[in-house]
């Protein structure tokens, strides 16, 4: 992969330029949608959980965290089918297409998280020191999404309704993640299953690190690293198996 770094970077830039349609305001449009979503959820649910500590900030962190996963996977899903020319007409290692797409989402999400940090400083008055762990956690999250992207994009070549299925699944996952409600409302007997949701663990860690200033628990850390490795192994194994017939199926 390293010897292809220029190609990866070029494709990432193309992706970003196409996403923002070459407009300077492009990034702000992509920021507007999660902010608006957070605002709406805040006004609906503040009566219920408004008294929870840092409800507004936690909501924002949850949304931004969710956004990276949702856009990352759904946009990576289309990469191989969408760039079929680069698969059938020329040879480049195909994982590059997925990688550069997820990298573009990563850059976008880094920008949104910078804005988020500014908002936290304004609302909270300070930033916890543990925020220094953010790059590491974001990298693990990125790797998890890359693995999921490899799996989804290669399956999508064979199952063209996967995008619809994935849309429904992410919707379900959104409500199964502690984004707009506190973890405490989950009944104890459901908790073990609930915690299997990788996004939940990521959100818990991001909140610990960015808002409360606690170190993430060993359990959460182990779970997310495990998820990232598992997603990458499964994704890249499936991808390399299915890749052999990409050019025939497209």
């Amino acid at each position, binding site marked *: 992969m390293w010897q292809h770094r*220029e*190609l990866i970077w*070029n*494709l990432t830039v*193309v992706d970003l*330029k*196409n996403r923002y*349609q*070459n407009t300077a305001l492009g990034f702000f449009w992509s920021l507007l949608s999660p902010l608006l979503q957070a605002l709406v959820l805040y006004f609906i649910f503040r009566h219920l959980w408004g008294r929870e500590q840092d409800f507004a900030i936690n909501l924002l962190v949850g949304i931004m965290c969710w956004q990276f996963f949702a856009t990352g996977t759904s946009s990576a899903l289309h990469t191989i089918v969408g*760039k079929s*020319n*680069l*698969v*059938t*007409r*020329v*040879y*480049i290692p195909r994982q590059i297409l997925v990688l550069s797409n997820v990298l573009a989402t990563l850059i976008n999400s880094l920008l949104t998280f910078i804005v988020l940090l500014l908002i936290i400083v304004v609302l909270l008055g300070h930033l916890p020191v543990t925020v220094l762990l953010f790059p590491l956690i974001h990298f693990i999250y990125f790797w998890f999404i890359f693995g999921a992207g490899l799996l989804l994009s290669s399956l999508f070549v*064979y*199952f*063209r*309704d*996967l995008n619809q*299925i994935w849309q429904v699944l992410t919707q379900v996952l959104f409500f199964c993640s502690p984004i707009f409600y506190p973890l405490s409302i989950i009944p104890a007997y459901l908790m073990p299953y609930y915690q299997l949701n990788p996004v939940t663990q990521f959100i818990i860690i991001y909140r610990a690190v960015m808002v409360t200033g606690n170190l993430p628990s060993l359990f959460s850390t182990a779970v997310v690293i495990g998820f990232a490795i598992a997603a990458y192994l499964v994704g890249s194994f499936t991808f390399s198996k299915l890749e*052999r*017939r990409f*050019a*025939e199926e497209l």
Partner: protein
Amino acid sequence: MSAIVVDNISKKFRIPHEKKNTVFQNIVGLIKRQFSYEEFWALKDVSFEVNKGEAFGIIGRNGSGKSTLLKILASVLYADSGSVAMNGKVASFLQLGVGFQPELTASENVYIYSSILGLSRKQVNKVYDEIFDFAELKKFENMKLKSYSSGMNVRLAFSTAIYAVPDTLLIDEVLAVGDEAFRKKCRDKMNQFKTEGKTIVFVSHALDAVKELCQRTMLLNEGRIVTMGDTEKVINDYRAMVQQRTAKTSSTRMT
């Protein structure tokens, strides 16, 4: 020294009676047990070698497996059995201008396309002016590609591609682009590559172009090698084969 060694490769395509493209269709197919498909061999037991610095032609009728073979050489498709060994870096031109972005400028596209073909930014900087001079598009380098005419598009793609040629070059019918003057420039460039000692594999229907460029040629029919050797002789075989076939079909029509 061989640049390409192809050893006994075969490629089978499966054509399902009913194309199943979705999860739903696959589940229905599983329940009804409809997984019938037809198999056909696009290539069967094909072996050959191309020497370093040689121009090698592949001819044959439509559906004879030429393009499949070239795609396998380009590692876009995988052979079901047999092996392919390529020595040196390979650039494949199955289509020109792969990955061109209409929303970006010509100059940006040159960098992107070059990196797809395996050139680094530094290497492009060195030949950047030559690319635009060869394409005769210096005036339009900062124009968005979507404003280019199709002719300009092809010229830009070809000019970029020829500066990315490493050791071996795989070409599928892409010489037939642009007007007569530009085609002449392309032919000259190909001959120049030959004298520079680059290896060329050339798939074409244009027999004259094959005759001009290639020392050796291979004739494929229904996925098998019919003859291989001196270009002149192989082309004569091909013409005889086509004539025989047309004679046969017209005689069956008579009776």
